[in-house]
């Protein structure tokens, strides 16, 4: 099941903090979709080290969506797939 959080209007590093909190609360089989105003590059190394995979899509200028799921779980099929191509 998809869990959705919007961190677009938070100041750094609150988006990181909320994303990591949300991941800790994920139930087995769940994945996380994050709405962000930036491509959160510092997050990716953390996700890699914590055993997660991700897919980032630029939906519009200044609007990104990041789908995050545990490694080993099949990549989730998006319930609301973004229309634009990956950056």
């Amino acid at each position, binding site marked *: 099941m998809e869990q959705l959080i919007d961190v677009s*209007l938070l*100041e*750094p*590093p*609150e988006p*990181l*903090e909320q994303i*990591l909190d949300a991941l*800790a609360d994920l139930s087995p089989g769940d994945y996380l979709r994050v709405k962000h*105003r*930036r*491509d959160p*590059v*510092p997050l990716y*190394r*953390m996700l890699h*080290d*914590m055993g997660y995979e991700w897919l980032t899509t630029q939906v519009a200028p200044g609007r990104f969506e990041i789908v995050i799921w545990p490694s080993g779980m099949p990549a989730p099929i998006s319930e609301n797939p973004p229309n634009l191509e990956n950056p």
Partner: protein
Amino acid sequence: MNLGGLSADKAPPADAPLVLFYLMPAFMAFAGLVLAWQGDQIMLSRWTPAALATTHLLVLGSLAPVMCGALLQISPVLLGAPYRRPRRVARFTATGLGIGSLLLGAGFLLLKPTLLMAGGIMAAVGLGVFLVATFEALTTTAIRHETLWSIRLAAGALAVTIILGLVLVLARAGWIDLPKHLNWVDTHAAWGLAGWLGLLLAAVGMELIPLFYISPPFPIWLKYSFSISIILSLSLILALGTHLPITTQILFAAILLAYLLYSAYALHSEHRRQRPRRDASLWLWQASHVTVFLAFFGWLFDTSISLIGGLLLTGTLAFVIGSLLKIVPFLCWLDLQQRRIRSQHLDVKLPRLSALLPTWQAIAIAVTMILAIAALSGAAIEASLIHLAGGLLVMCAVSLAIALATAAGARQAYARLLAASNSPSD
């Protein structure tokens, strides 16, 4: 700036910038004490020993270490320009600036040229090491960006400031003859304040304000024209030396106008922010922009130069402290996150950012700093208020020390917890 290009992997260890940040409250308190004690003398003339001591305690003891620490952190993460040995550079710079500022402050207050000489050399060596490491780091990056351009210009301005400062120390010690040496003091102060501190702060501010408050970015033309006009004006002042004093005055006015333009745009950008919440950092940043206008009006109405300088310095302090309130909890939190992930103890709950820097502490810092600026401005009408400004500066320094100690204590406590969780006895 494309923060999509942020590289947390290149970030230095957290204790490298923090060791430099910890110097700030101590020297701010020393400067506040001198201001509270010798305020009358300082108001009389900027050439009094107390005025010179306060300036150097604030600039070299408080501001320069934080600027160096911030650059140590920002260069690798934002500009892809990591320092080769960040811990060693930070400790060396902190030692040079710490001991150098103490000796310079004592040398001015006690009228001891030997202390001045020793302090000047210590501070110059500390900053010199930092400067060499900075130029080395900035030449390694492949990123081409207007902020990098401004930081390089600010680093160049620091080199000029150090050289002029050493020449002045030699002149004061009687080793060389420097005719009209007070003009050279002005040039030294202008390169240090407007070239190094101001340019670096404005360059960083043009990135931090939109980043933290989700406000419109500063236009590229402003970023380039600001740094070029400052460095060009300072270079002309240096080239003219003691000739054409009227032209030099016009150039000083041009520098002040450039800072007015930057401050006006910064206030405009903060006003149009998407995050409506106001916090201590925003108050401090806005206060720092307003002090540029206060200094301008002071200059228009022929107020004491000491007071104008004091306003510009406290405005700079306000911006730097506002930035520290953002940077320090972030650094501590990031350090703990990385330790937690490395140790694979993802079950350990880390403190919230608000626990690393409680809101009431940030408010206490902002309120005392803003009151200090207000008291300093009021000293233009009632001179005795300068003593109050000094006392408020000490209170602000104590509040800042408590906040830094709170963040450091929480970081150490959780670092120990993570280390214990990782021990073989588990």
